[in-house]
């Protein structure tokens, strides 16, 4: 497995091998699916759209529908305006969404298609029925990563919908970041448990985890409603979770509607979740109920009970930057040592944050943004770790080096659970920690000589 990877690390400046990121539009497509009755639209050649739909489908095992401008060579040269116009006509007539959320690709960005003018013209020419919305985000694949695309489309929701006249001083906004449907559901549950009226957007719960009923709903029950997306402009406060995914929208909302905001880490693990709950307390003056304090206590209980299996275990982690920051913090609080922390998404800020968390814990951590899994594998070859945590692509390294492996992040193409159980919040923390501990225990069982094979662990 991965036999061609040499141990000796040579710096590469041009060749990317086994990336720890993918491109912007898939993140925009995912964000757009978090709007109720929205059809994501990919303005480019159709290959991108097919790839993005396929990959989201593989991750969720759910239908993922999106349309595309299907550029031909002619459109690539002369511009894609006619393609977008034809698309809108067909989309509204055949598929009748309430919102079409247009994102771009490297193709339409390179040729410089001006999407706002195209939308304006389409509106003037009655290609967009009354009461229907077409929004857009520019998502050039050659900038940032899928997280950037998610961030940009989330910001577009603010740009197009947020209305400061819909004032409600008791309401807050929560930007969940690029997290899973169950995480968004958990954030809604937690805020409601605290008696807070919160608008979580985008919101893919009940969109990408729909029940089997014998009916196919092209636009499922879930997704942030247009009324809600408008109302975010009149909320008292915005909590942005994960700066890479959420800061752009939070900033835009402050600029456009004067809603103050605070950026927080993704509430993953006990410390980051504490900060999230505290922030809600400060902003709303509401207190967490006993049930939530018990949830917290149960998470800390598991961390206490299982400490000896976790203590000083070295871990290599890779994934999206907001997740990696909080995960590093969580692992450290559980007594583990994240020695290698990698994200494919560029950003120096990431390296600084993670290094700050690891100060005094890991002497010389390798923390890298804009890095890849080939490099991570080489690091592991030189200094083997006790555990790897990351998306499905990590299983090749795990197999090659015979290291236990926990699936976490996007995409997970080969297991179930990630789309049903949260990893955010106290409850999510228990779920993630359970996964980590059980993986370690499975390995201990597998490797134990008979006399040390334990019944009770």
């Amino acid at each position: 497995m991965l036999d061609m990877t040499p141990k000796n690390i040579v710096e590469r400046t041009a060749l990317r091998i086994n990336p720890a990121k993918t491109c912007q539009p898939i993140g925009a497509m995912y964000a757009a699916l978090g709007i109720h009755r929205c059809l994501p639209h990919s303005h480019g050649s159709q290959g991108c759209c097919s790839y993005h739909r396929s990959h989201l489908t593989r991750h969720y095992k759910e239908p993922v529908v999106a349309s595309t401008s299907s550029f031909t060579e002619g459109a690539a040269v002369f511009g894609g305006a006619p393609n977008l116009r034809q698309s809108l006509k067909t989309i509204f007539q055949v598929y009748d969404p309430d919102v079409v959320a247009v994102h771009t690709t490297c193709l339409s960005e390179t040729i410089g298609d001006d999407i706002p003018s195209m939308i304006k013209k389409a509106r003037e020419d009655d290609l967009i029925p009354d009461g229907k919305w077409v929004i857009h985000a520019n998502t050039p694949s050659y900038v940032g990563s899928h997280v950037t695309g998610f961030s940009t489309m989330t910001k577009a929701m603010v740009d197009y919908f947020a209305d400061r006249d819909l004032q409600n001083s008791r309401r807050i906004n929560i930007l969940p970041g690029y997290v899973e449907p169950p995480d968004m559901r958990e954030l809604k549950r937690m805020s409601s448990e605290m008696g807070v009226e919160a608008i979580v957007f985008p919101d893919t719960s009940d969109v990408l985890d729909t029940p089997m009923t014998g009916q196919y709903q092209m636009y499922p029950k879930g997704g942030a409603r247009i009324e809600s997306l408008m109302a975010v402009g009149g909320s008292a406060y915005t909590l942005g979770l994960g700066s890479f995914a959420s800061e752009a929208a939070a900033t835009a909302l402050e600029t456009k509607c004067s809603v103050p905001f605070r950026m927080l880490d993704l509430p993953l693990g006990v410390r980051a979740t504490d900060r999230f709950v505290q922030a809600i307390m400060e902003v709303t003056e509401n207190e967490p109920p006993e049930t939530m304090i018990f949830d917290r206590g149960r998470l800390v209980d598991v961390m206490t009970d299982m400490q000896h299996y976790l203590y000083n275990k070295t871990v290599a982690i890779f994934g999206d930057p907001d997740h990696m920051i909080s995960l590093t913090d969580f692992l450290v609080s559980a007594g583990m040592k994240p020695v290698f922390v990698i994200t494919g998404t560029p950003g120096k800020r990431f390296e600084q944050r993670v290094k700050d968390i690891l100060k005094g814990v890991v002497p010389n951590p390798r923390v890298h943004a804009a890095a890849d899994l080939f490099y991570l594998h080489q690091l592991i070859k030189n200094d083997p770790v006790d555990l790897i945590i990351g998306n499905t692509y990590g299983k090749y390294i795990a197999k090659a080096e015979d290291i236990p492996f926990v699936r976490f992040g996007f995409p997970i193409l080969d297991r179930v659970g990630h789309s049903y159980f949260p990893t955010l919040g106290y409850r999510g923390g228990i779920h993630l920690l359970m996964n980590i501990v059980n993986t370690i225990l499975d390995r201990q069982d597998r490797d134990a000589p008979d006399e040390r094979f334990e019944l009770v662990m």
Partner: protein
Amino acid sequence: MGILKEQDISVGAELIDPHEVKQELLRKVPAKVARKRAKQIVVNEVHPSEDMPEIGANTRTIPGIITQRGCTYAGCKGVILGPTRDIVNITHGPIGCGFYSWLTRRNQTRTNGPEDENFMTYCFSTDMQEEDIVFGGEKKLRAAIQEAYDLFKPKAISIFATCPVGLIGDDVHAVAREMKEQLGINVFGFSCEGYKGVSQSAGHHIANNGIFTHVVGLNDKIKEGKYKINLLGEYNIGGDAFEIDRVLDECGITVVSTFSGNSTYDQFANAHMADLNTIMCHRSINYVAEMMETKYGIPWIKINFIGAEAAAKSLRKIAKYFEDPELIERVEAVIAREMPEVINVRDEVRKRCEGKVAMLFVGGSRAHHYQELFAEIGMKTISAGYEFAHRDDYEGRNVIPSLKVDADSRNIEELEVHPDPERFRPRKTAEEVERLQEKGFRFKDYDGMMREMLSGTLVIDDISQYETERLIEIYKPDIFCAGIKEKFAVQKKGIPMKQLHSYDSGGPYAGFKGAVNFYREIDRMVNSQIWKYLQAPWQESPELTAKYACD
């Protein structure tokens, strides 16, 4: 038409008027779109010895229609050249294209030992950034090739262009030539930008041209063994090519190269030394076969290893070509040995599947081939279509002279190929060819999908999401076959859905063992218990629940 409204009544497919269904599918779309789709939705009519109804195919996709099609890059890198294990395939573009084509097609790969290179689990990309778009990416591409060479010392490196590459004017071929000179290994590029052509198909053509120009014919080594063939258009999804190889091996037939499941650079380079080209997937690889015939004198025939009967027929056809009684006898012996298990399982499964109906909408080949497997267990195909096949795949190769290349595909290069002055060697003399043909043997024969489908079936090219939904609401097939994007929408409607691209991580389905796998898989799917539990008991029969509550 009443049947469209009474969806809770299970209607026999034969009672549904396909012409009315066609009108129904066209009803909701804009008039201009309907005119175009009307050509791509055809009610099949089969009259022996007459031409098939004409179908609109290989034309541009309607924007916004929700197509299942992919792009030229996917056809070139993802399909044809991705499965080769010892070439470093570098995607020149932003990260997405390389990422999504990384291990997502199940082209199984097995090396001959630890000394064999295998790059299948790697994704190589130049990961273009904004400055590469602004200032050009050739410099980075050159550096990436150098780094790949320094790291791996591979036999060959190939480069795949993506959408922005063509627009910014990066010349991947010039960089390839330069680096080939500098490194002393074969480096070659493909201009497979995603916007070329109208689908994956253009990418197949570009891949065929590139591999033929840059690799085929470079190695004149004579491979040992008898009855040497190339297996073209077989990508070893789920181990299909392994099963075919097993059967061919037992027959004593030597495979010089496979295009391109579990293939190697050396196999491609040596492919021109075979004596017969056999084509599985006509759409993706017929170009290479044609060019090899012109340049080297190797004839080609269509074969099909999907379906036990089809596999047996294909083996006999190969044996007939070589006209060697020893081979013919051995092939018969292998078929005789393989068939009992097949028949055993088939008869068992048939009891539970007979009379059920299937729909198949797959790429450019399988929508046809798998109909044979379904037929073997008594299932009928009532509707089928391709994403990106051409008219010859639907109607048969005899329509090729009348095909018009439209504006969208005109820029896909047609290579001009001439007989190789030294190495052109007709494998059969004119007399031998004539004699074979008199005995009913057909070269370059592909009759297309429609001729083998029943009259009254619906053939739909580039089917849309909307059409898929309506079609299954109207016909309620017992199984629907397509890809990952369709899978869960169809399944949510309570209809078993079999992926015929990825096989839902199953397979092999080719050859004799593959047929057995497939029979069992379809039996499991169409007779699954799960469809009975879609509703909770209190939803299905409220009065019953009320009774329990009273008790």
